[in-house]
């Protein structure tokens, strides 16, 4: 065993320049692959972090209330009972809050925009909405203050909408909500804060005072949009979700079928269904942000394609290097076969050579990638392009390189390279021992 290692190792050293070039290119692929995975994972993390501040708990008790067959109101009636249930029966929960849902128009003097909005109770939002960054107000007489949402007649919105509506802190905007009684109720509200954009999600959210929203819809005080449950450990989610479904159904509530989309994409479907009354919809953060999933998938696919292309180039280099090694060592291999080495040992000898190269270089790449990620994260490189900001859902490039990404890089590259080196290794194993003797 040891002797094969020595042979492989010394042969690598023997062909120093060739091995070094190969090792350097494997390190390169390893770094690139790691960085791309870290970026994708970073975007995913940002998406969870932002999504859970903007529009969803890890788990939500949401639902629709239908007064007539064709209506669809995204609300939970008599919610205090469910809130009590959540607070008493979900020990895994860290924070539990509720928000009222609205869907309507914001109208300024110059423009208007149709968006989903949230009626919030600021007593509950310190660690939720409070996590978002607020733009410094351009008007010194009207400093931005998110906590003012606790007062009636207030609005907080993202930069993207503030720009479109051409409003700043202190300006008035009209909220116009079509209600289920086929009336449209309106109210003038004052902008109290403008939130920094967090990519594409910013376009789908704005915040009002919860009481105002109930009033506009003429809803009772004991109704809300959804109860949002934040877990201490995200890994508990499937377990808790299953339990909630079971227990809430047992309490006599009718549950909606699971559908991975945000509430505002469910209106048409629910409005087309013939039931009336209250149905509960248990959703997860993944369901509510599923309309952004394609971004992560696309980034993942790009990473995959780029890595495959790079790896194929490197694998060809690896195959070529081993190939040359086999050619130069025909006599040696023939000799080993003649003195009694079995074919599979020859195969193993060459695989070992490729393993030493790929394992050590990939590991070196991982170490390098970890360092690069730290440096890049510390540098907090701002993304200049608005399109990229929207796409990557963040304002700074952020890389999350954890054990999962490291293992993924390590195993996919080493397995891929080992498979590639099987070709020359099999060629070596096929060499006849006669080559050792016939050489005069």
């Amino acid at each position: 065993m040891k002797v094969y290692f020595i042979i492989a190792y010394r042969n690598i050293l023997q062909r120093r320049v060739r091995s070094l070039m190969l090792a350097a290119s494997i390190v390169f692929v390893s770094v690139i692959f790691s960085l791309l995975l870290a970026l994708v994972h970073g975007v995913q993390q940002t998406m969870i972090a932002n999504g859970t501040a903007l529009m969803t708990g890890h788990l939500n008790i949401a639902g629709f209330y239908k007064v007539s067959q064709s209506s669809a109101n995204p609300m939970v009636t008599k919610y205090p009972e469910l809130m009590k249930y959540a607070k008493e029966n979900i020990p895994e929960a860290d924070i539990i809050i509720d928000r009222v849902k609205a869907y309507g128009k914001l109208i300024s003097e110059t423009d208007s925009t149709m968006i989903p909005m949230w009626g919030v109770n600021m007593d509950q939002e310190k660690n939720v909405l409070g996590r978002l960054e607020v733009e410094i107000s351009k008007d010194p007489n009207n400093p931005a203050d998110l906590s003012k949402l606790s007062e009636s007649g207030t609005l907080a919105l993202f930069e993207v909408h503030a720009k479109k509506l051409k409003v700043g802190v202190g300006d008035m905007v009209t909220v116009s909500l079509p209600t289920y009684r086929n009336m449209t109720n309106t109210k003038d509200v004052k902008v109290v804060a403008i939130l920094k954009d967090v990519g594409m999600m910013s376009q789908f959210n704005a915040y009002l005072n919860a009481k105002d929203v109930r009033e506009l819809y003429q809803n009772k005080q004991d109704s809300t949009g959804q109860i949002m449950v934040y877990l201490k450990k995200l890994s508990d989610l499937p377990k808790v979700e299953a339990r909630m479904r079971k227990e809430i159904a047992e309490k006599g509530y009718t549950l909606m079928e699971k559908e991975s989309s945000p509430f505002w994409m469910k209106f048409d479907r629910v409005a087309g269904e013939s039931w009336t009354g209250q149905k509960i919809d248990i959703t997860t953060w993944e369901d509510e942000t599923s309309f952004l999933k394609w971004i992560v998938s696309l980034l993942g696919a790009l990473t995959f394609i780029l890595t495959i292309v790079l790896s194929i180039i490197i694998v060809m280099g690896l195959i070529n290097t081993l190939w040359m090694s086999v050619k130069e060592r025909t006599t040696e291999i023939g000799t080993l076969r003649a003195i009694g080495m079995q074919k599979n040992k020859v195969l193993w000898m060459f695989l070992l050579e490729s393993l030493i190269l790929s394992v050590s270089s990939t590991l070196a790449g991982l170490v390098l990638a970890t360092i690069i990620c730290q440096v890049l994260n510390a540098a907090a490189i701002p993304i200049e392009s608005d399109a990229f900001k929207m796409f990557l859902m963040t304002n700074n490039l952020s890389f999350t390189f954890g054990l999962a990404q490291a293992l993924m890089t390590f195993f996919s590259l080493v397995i891929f390279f080992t498979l590639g080196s099987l070709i020359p290794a099999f060629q070596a194993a096929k060499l006849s021992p006669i080559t050792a003797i016939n050489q005069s």
Partner: protein
Amino acid sequence: MQPIHLENVQKNYFLDKVQVSALKGINLKIDAGEFTVIAGPSGSGKTTILNLIGCVDTASSGKVVVGGKETGSLTEKQLTDLRLHTIGFIFQSFNLIPVLNVIDNVEFPLLLQNKQSPKERRDQVMRFIDRVGLTQYAQHRPSELSGGQRQRVAIARALVTKPQIVLADEPTANLDSVTGQNIIDLMKEINATEKTTFLFSTHDHSIMNQARRIIRLLDGRIQE
């Protein structure tokens, strides 16, 4: 029973569909402990015979029995095992593993056999290195040794497993005559003390005359 026994062995090669008969019916028995030379001009079939006996090639017809086993009926794997356990090879160009030092080169067949403890193995390796007079070069790589010294390493490697048969195809062809003579002397000496069967080929007259038995080959036939 003889370690080597050939019965009416023929070997044909095909060169561009033209049949070349390298061996035309060879009958040969070699007793244990013999020191035999196969002599003959270039192209007479010396290497072909040694390839068949060395189990690296198979006969076109006839019977080749080596160490009590008929090679024609063995699989590739079994032939490899037979080579490992019954035959020692000495090559014309020494064929050492360039990246390994003398000790590791000599130890290699024992590692393949894998039937001794590391300590036993080391002892045996050092004994054979001493036997060929290279103790002070034990840590050297082949590239740091002269041709004669390399062939001594090869002899130690061929003998370290204590094989029944040692085969050598023109072992002195790449050495000057004095060094070549030393190598033959060493082989003779080991043959006398260890009772190993030696079979080697040469076309050098001064060397073939030192063997106890000479098998003269001409054009694929034995001329005894």
